[in-house]
């Protein structure tokens, strides 16, 4: 084994680190446009899923243009704000602002059965990291048309179950309003009663994720209260 001086070791490590950093920076910069495109397709795919349209990576763009008719940005009083693209709004950034200054994105779509539905993005915290999703509501602005959820790293088999069809489909037909009061949809441990219009079953073993999801729904959908009230028919 050759003996290396301290000087050599320092120079060797410096050169190595600089070389590696350059290589990685180049790779990251070159691949970024493609990665961002993938994220955009992924987002469009989730939005479509919330109205029950299954898309693949290849068909997403076309289906999105076909079903999603309009996108709006609202303020917390339910008024339209011009000059912003709903698709580009990052909910996490908005949540840091005071409620009056938040931009609330919203999408309108024509569902498969011809019904005009409104799609609202939601975002919250699970057990290990962020959870998010899209809820679509029927023209009465209370009945849930469909829902889709996703998560960054909830426990597989427990909290991660929120993005299964079985869980998401329980939301279909639930009501966000009790008469004229916003109550959101709750997630009940031990199971919701049959015919309960405001609750779904929680996930066994995924209590914190379930609670986080419940909070996410009432927090995010609650901000649209004024819009719901004004536009229901």
């Amino acid at each position, binding site marked *: 084994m050759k003996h290396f001086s301290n000087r050599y070791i320092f120079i060797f490590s410096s050169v190595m680190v600089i070389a590696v950093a350059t290589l990685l920076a180049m790779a990251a910069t070159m*691949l970024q446009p493609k990665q961002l495109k993938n994220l955009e397709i992924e987002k469009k795919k989730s939005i479509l899923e919330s109205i029950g349209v299954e898309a693949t990576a290849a068909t997403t763009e076309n289906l999105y243009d076909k079903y999603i008719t309009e996108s709006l940005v609202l303020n917390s009083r339910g008024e339209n704000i011009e000059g912003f693209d709903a698709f580009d709004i990052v909910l996490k950034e908005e949540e840091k602002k005071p409620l009056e200054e938040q931009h609330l994105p919203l999408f309108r779509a024509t569902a498969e059965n011809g019904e005009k539905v409104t799609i609202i993005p939601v975002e919250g915290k699970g057990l290990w990291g962020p959870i998010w999703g899209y809820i679509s509501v029927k023209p009465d602005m209370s009945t849930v048309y469909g829902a889709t959820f996703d998560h960054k790293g909830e426990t597989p088999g427990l909290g991660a179950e929120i993005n299964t069809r079985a869980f998401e489909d329980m939301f279909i037909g639930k009501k966000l309003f009790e008469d004229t009061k916003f109550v959101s949809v709750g997630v009940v441990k031990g199971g919701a009663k049959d015919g309960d219009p405001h609750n779904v079953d929680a996930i066994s073993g995924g209590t914190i994720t379930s609670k986080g999801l419940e909070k996410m729904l009432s927090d995010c959908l609650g901000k649209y209260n004024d819009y719901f009230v004004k536009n229901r028919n």
Partner: protein
Amino acid sequence: MSNQEKEPMFSAKIRKIFTTPLGKENPITVQVLGICSALAVTVKLKPALVMALSVTIVTAVSNFVIAALRDYIPDRIRIIVQLVVIATMVILVDQFLKAYAFDVSKQLSVFVGLIITNCILMGRLEAFAMANKPWPSFVDGLGNGAGYGIILVIVAFLRELLGSGTIYGYPVMQKLGVYSTGYENNGMMILPPMALIVLGLIIWFQRSRNESLIEKK
């Protein structure tokens, strides 16, 4: 020395470097390295194949790089150098997957990043690449990656077939019409413990066939 220089690229020795990790010295079933990821990504064939491919590429290339640098790497910081090489490769693979195989990269999630901690890699770099020339080291990396991959694919094949009734996403069981006879998918196969049991069965089978693997009392 000059004799070795002229060694053909695919000599018997090189072929042997490639084939031993497939069977007799398989990193998973014999050396029991890297089984953590083997359990995690074998629910379906597709992520298992991508994972096997990623590990093979990372092992082979980092083996090559370390072997090429072996005379210049100061002994005192060799583990750090090895880690830097592995980590760089893994990040590159991860970035490429995110750009060109987004769905798979989502399924593999943290496990691509965890290739860095896969014991097979450090094991090969330390045991082989630090003492051999670049080309044999590259082949050794390929062999170990493939040995890891074979086991992953066998486990994933069984788990996907029996657990979901599909092979590479193709609904075999449905096409065969066995559901009408009362057959049902075994949900147990999808859970992590069954990966361990399937792996155990493979090890049992391999040891019963290959006597040199049986420990002497």
